[in-house]
């Protein structure tokens, strides 16, 4: 607890109350529970980051160890089942909240002027979230993961003309292999998170700067 004398000293130097006023005390119209889905998604993302970092302490992204390391997380490590369970279900839930959040914005027409860029970053955030789901799904390296990724990358391979190239780029070769596992792991823990964090920064900056839209009324 920051003492009563400590706080003004810090506030004068860090501008804490300014941040508080801008971020949390900002004016909002009267809205409903559908407007909580963005915050819910942000919370789930934070949960995914924390549990994901924890899982990386034990998970090994190699074809001969990936499955065994997850068995160890589930059966050998204290609360491993819980951390992985939260990561697994948090991922599923996050896709749902992201999607409902998009539907809310769409049906309330909140994507219109002046919030086009908020919407655009949101679309890329949706795609990046799906990318996280797709790359994370391979990491357990069990039958379901293997064949789901075989099918998923094959779908990408049906693009006319450049399909074969996309397929090879995704798999790191013509077949699913240890190279695929390594690049999916890299995408899952470095590339997509970096993109998502950057986009969340822009997205939330715009939400704070422009403010949120109200529920449309009869004459809108």
């Amino acid at each position, binding site marked *: 607890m920051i003492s009563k004398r400590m706080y003004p000293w810090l506030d004068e130097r860090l501008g804490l109350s300014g941040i508080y006023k801008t971020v949390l005390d900002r004016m909002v119209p009267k809205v409903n529970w559908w407007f909580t889905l963005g915050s819910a998604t942000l919370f789930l993302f934070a949960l995914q980051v924390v549990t994901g970092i924890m899982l990386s302490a034990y998970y090994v992204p190699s074809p001969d160890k990936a499955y*065994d390391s997850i068995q160890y997380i589930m059966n050998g*490590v*204290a*609360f*491993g089942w819980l951390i992985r369970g939260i990561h697994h279900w948090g991922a599923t839930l996050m896709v749902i909240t992201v999607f409902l959040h998009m539907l809310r914005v769409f049906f309330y027409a909140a994507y219109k002027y002046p919030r086009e860029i908020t919407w655009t970053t949101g679309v890329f955030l949706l795609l990046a979230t799906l990318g996280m789901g797709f790359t994370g799904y391979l990491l357990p390296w069990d039958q379901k993961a293997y064949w789901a990724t075989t099918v998923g990358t094959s779908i990408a391979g049906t693009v006319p003309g450049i399909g074969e190239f996309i397929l090879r780029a995704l798999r790191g070769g013509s077949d699913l292999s240890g190279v695929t596992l390594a690049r999916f792991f890299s995408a899952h823990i470095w590339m997509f998170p970096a993109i998502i964090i950057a986009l969340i920064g822009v997205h939330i900056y715009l939400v704070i700067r422009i403010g949120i839209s109200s529920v449309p009324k009869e004459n809108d």
Partner: protein
Amino acid sequence: MARSPNLSRRGFIMSVMTFAGSIMGIVVGLPVIGFLISPALNVTKSDAWVPVGKLDSYPVGVPTPFSFTRTKVNGWEKTVNSISVFVLRDATDKVRVFSSVCTHLGCRVTFHKDSNEFICPCHDAHFNKDGGVVSGPPPRPLDQYESKVENGALLIHVIQS
């Protein structure tokens, strides 16, 4: 709305949120700590009598090396640990088996016949033939294994944690 003389609505919500937040932090935080330190808490000890060859094959009075490997399952893989010992047999067939692990910081010592000493290359520790510290930083003499002879075969008691 009438103001409560004791606790404002804002104050009430603040304390409820602080309380609920603390509970959530503990419920989430403790498993995370347990998850990370878990391997340090799972200590399994195993011991075995390992045969290290015929007693007669060891020369009298000279520490003679013998190496073997022990495997154990650690996490998601089998770890193969190489263990090497020095067997010192005296004229009355009494046997002492020294660990080659330097008692300073765990490097492996070798026996030098010219100086009749075990020497550790890491920090120049010297032990005499009986394992006692001659010079250098080691805090105690070389560790010894419990040993026994059965039907002419020498066995040592290896305890792994």
